[in-house]
């Protein structure tokens, strides 16, 4: 049985089991229909032209893992931002783990999607926001159909969450192959501020396919800073579908750091539904071997006087492949839009590939849009300069790669996250840099 058939046929039992009366019952039903009609994306779909899921889909994934998986904190401590105090929403094989988590209901809600979907007190928020910005493409629909667990974060008006929130999904490897479909909902009400770090981590080399959907709603004058740390094992696949709806005067930034994993697809979609909105999309990709990372971004400028700023850097070694598909739509009403997009890539080895495709669709006539894309090797003159100061070639290359990626790190607002990412970059490049960058 194909994975698609397996999923469609398990749906009924799933729906029955979790709660057929749930208020998102209809949403689920129509989502499974969408998925059934569309099936998994293939390279024939324009949006998936450079990314094939064939090798990922042939695994026999367990859809409903056992519930009793536990892990010791000391085994996974390194995956947490333990240098600072954070709220933590932790899942093990898709199941919430209260022992590793630190949630709150004190003035802000940092808790679970499963509660939000079932408890009456969250009903209004769910009805207002759940699946309201997510698209009905096949991977998102698949997630929606099976949505039951994930992080639920709701920050009321004029609140600033005093510490960052970590959302961590661990896969234990107790199943030979596991499909995970976390569903996150983040609502920042008027003038609310929140910082979130998300990561997915396998603890063994067993195959994991994560198809995660995150919806973010940034209401008037709110701010959301979101950091995605993608440094999983080379047997893990991540399909990240993130949808962001912004209202007037809001600021949302998403930084995506893609260093690990077998295949990563980031579908990052911004919808600007108000004036004076600022959207920031930044990414650093450093991959090797046969790794594959695909960034497909969309910024939809709907209203006037908004800005978007995209900056993606990629360093590709070995046989790795990168895709950057950056789509900007400026609608007719969206006058005085300032949209900037940049994608710079370095190919370290002859067999590394990058497919970079900016797509600008501009229907307004008074806008400032710029985009740039470069693909190249490390600058020989810069390399010579460093070497002539006694820095070995390998270290010099690392320093240059760091320098290349560094301006993306400048906008990271949590120093500890910045330090972590710097270290990950140094490790990934395979050099111990002799100082704190």
């Amino acid at each position: 049985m194909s994975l698609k058939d397996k999923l469609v046929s398990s749906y009924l039992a799933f729906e029955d089991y979790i709660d057929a009366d749930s208020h998102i019952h209809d949403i689920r039903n129509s989502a499974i229909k969408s998925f059934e009609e569309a099936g998994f994306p293939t390279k024939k779909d324009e949006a998936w032209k450079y990314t094939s899921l064939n090798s990922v889909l042939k695994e026999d994934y367990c859809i409903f893992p056992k519930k009793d998986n536990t892990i010791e904190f000391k085994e996974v401590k390194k995956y947490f931002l333990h240098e600072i105090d954070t709220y933590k929403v932790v899942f093990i094989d898709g199941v919430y783990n209260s022992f590793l988590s630190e949630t709150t209901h004190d003035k802000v809600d940092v808790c679970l999607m499963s509660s939000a979907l079932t408890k009456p007190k969250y009903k209004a928020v769910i009805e207002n926001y759940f699946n309201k910005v997510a698209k009905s493409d096949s991977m998102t629909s698949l997630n929606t159909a099976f949505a039951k667990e994930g992080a639920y974060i709701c920050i009321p008006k004029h609140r600033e969450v005093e510490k960052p929130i970590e959302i961590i999904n661990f896969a234990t490897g107790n199943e030979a192959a596991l499909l995970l479909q976390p569903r996150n909902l983040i609502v920042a009400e008027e003038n609310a501020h929140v910082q979130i770090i998300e990561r997915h981590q396998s603890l063994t080399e067993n195959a994991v396919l994560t198809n995660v959907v995150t919806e973010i709603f940034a209401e008037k004058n709110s701010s959301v800073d979101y950091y995605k740390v993608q440094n999983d094992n080379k047997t893990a696949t991540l399909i990240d579908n993130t949808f962001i709806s912004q209202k007037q005067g809001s600021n949302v930034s998403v930084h995506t750091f893609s260093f690990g994993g077998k295949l990563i697809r980031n579908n990052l979609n911004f919808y600007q539904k108000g004036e004076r909105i600022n959207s920031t999309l930044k990414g650093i990709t450093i991959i090797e071997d046969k790794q594959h990372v695909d960034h497909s971004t969309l910024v939809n400028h709907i209203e006037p006087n908004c800005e978007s700023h995209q900056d993606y850097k990629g360093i590709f070694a070995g046989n790795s492949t990168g895709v950057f598909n950056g789509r900007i739509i400026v609608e007719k009403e969206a006058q005085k839009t300032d949209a900037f997009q940049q994608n710079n890539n370095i190919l370290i080895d002859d067999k590394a590939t990058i497919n970079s495709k900016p797509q600008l669709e501009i229907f307004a006539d008074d806008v400032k849009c710029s985009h740039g894309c470069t693909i190249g090797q490390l600058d020989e003159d810069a390399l010579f300069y460093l070497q002539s100061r006694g820095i070995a070639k390998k270290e010099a290359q690392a320093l240059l790669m760091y320098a290349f990626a560094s301006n993306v790190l400048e906008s990271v607002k949590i120093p500890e996250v910045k330090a972590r990412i710097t270290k990950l970059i140094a490790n990934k490049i395979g050099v111990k840099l002799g100082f704190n960058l």
Partner: protein
Amino acid sequence: MLQIKNLHAGVEETDILKGINLEVKAGEVHAIMGPNGSGKSTLASVIAGKEEFDVTEGSILFEAEDIAELAPEERAHKGIFLSFQYPVEIPGVSVTNFIKTAINENRKAKGLEDMPANEMLKMIREKAEMFEMDRKFLSRSLNEGFSGGEKKRNEIFQLAMLDPKLAILDETDSGLDIDALRVVANGVNKLKSDKNAIVVITHYQRLLDHIVPDFVHVLMDGKIVKTGPKELAYELEERGYDWIKEEAKAV
């Protein structure tokens, strides 16, 4: 210290250096002058080991060891320093962090431990003061957004920090105003000793007023066509290069 014999080097099929002979001993200051495109910067790059250039004939000996096949960093470890005509901008890496890395890499090559942080800091402060460099300057990204003069000052600061045996200054005076030139030249003079040597590549005599050469060489079309005392620099400044061309032809 440095012995260059019949050095031919170039890029792909084009010869730029066509038989250079040069000997630099410890304690000496040599000036290399010559018209644009004569091969001055190529000579500097070849000594420092830039891979772009192929050495097709001849040899470069440094302290009696042939260094022609060594990587640039290995030459640096032996004590060769090139102050660049056009220093490269490295965003995201501060001047301080860069020089720390360079120093510790050099120490590592000599089998030494990293320099203790406080010692390093003290040394950085001392040398920065010597070149009248602002403290803020040290935390800026290497050469990024630096003025021409700041870049050159930073080169000489690195020279002072690394304390090489042989310093090659490639047009260090270009982009410097008179005050900055004086600061840089004074710094270089303070570093001078009977154990190290300096090769100054320049178009103009004015730097040589401050860093006084023992020998002046004229490089033309890839060859040293004339060598003389420091007075030769004044003569070149006054008369240009044509007369040397004529003289060289006559020989």
